[in-house]
């Protein structure tokens, strides 16, 4: 990723992980990941969930920055924002790198 690491470090990964930790929200993200924005009515009929439930889930995703809403006529349209998920991915990559470094030091420590 070309994003400077300082930006990556500033985003708190926990709310993003938490927002994704729900089957329904995960399905919403998968649906919206095609880049097309959709209204609550459209998502409600696609998901066979109550309008209220869909609204709640979208709100959690919006709070975590994973979707954004835009007013279109009388309705809100929701679309996917890729950056938060890319950021938590790179967060984990960096945790992995730290462990790789530590493990190579452990290896020389015990094998010497």
């Amino acid at each position, binding site marked *: 990723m070309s994003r400077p690491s300082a930006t990556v470090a500033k985003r708190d990964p926990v709310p993003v*992980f*938490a927002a994704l930790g729900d*089957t329904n929200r995960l399905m919403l993200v998968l649906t919206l990941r095609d880049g097309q924005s959709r209204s609550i009515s459209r998502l409600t009929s696609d998901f066979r969930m109550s309008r209220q439930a869909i609204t709640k889930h979208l709100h959690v995703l919006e709070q975590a920055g994973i979707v954004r809403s835009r007013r279109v006529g009388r309705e809100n349209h929701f679309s996917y924002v890729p950056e938060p998920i890319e950021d938590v991915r790179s967060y984990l990559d960096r945790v992995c790198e*730290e*462990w790789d470094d530590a493990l190579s030091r*452990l290896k020389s420590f*015990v094998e010497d």
Partner: protein
Amino acid sequence: MKDSIEKSIELKAPVERVWHALTDHRQFGEWFRVKLDGPFEVGEVSRGHITYPGYEHVQWEARIQAMEPERLFSFTWHPYAVDPDRDYVDEPPTLVEFRLEPISGGTRLVITESGFSRIPEGRRMEALRMNESGWEEQTSNIQAYVEA
């Protein structure tokens, strides 16, 4: 993107040697690059500071969760890895587990760090209400999502 990471490494050293490298606080400090104030004790908080060049100002703090001789060593902590200037106190800790297994010619060490998806305290009730199937399943959902 899973909510945990796992690393596996084969070490050309007997399990006993690796166990001491992990659980003797001075030996741990050598390779982890941390100067610890005292020995690890289950249930207790271990404190010290990082000796990694450039990160000497960073405090080390972890709560030891398990020490099963030559099998499992684990602690919870706030991973310092990403940003040493940041205060992680309000974030949920992650669990780091070191599992040891004898193999021919040495030891297999598996490290997992998990719990990145734990919910901040203030939002727990809301999330529980909305979430019927439990965290374990959710975690595998994220995994399936990412690995698909």
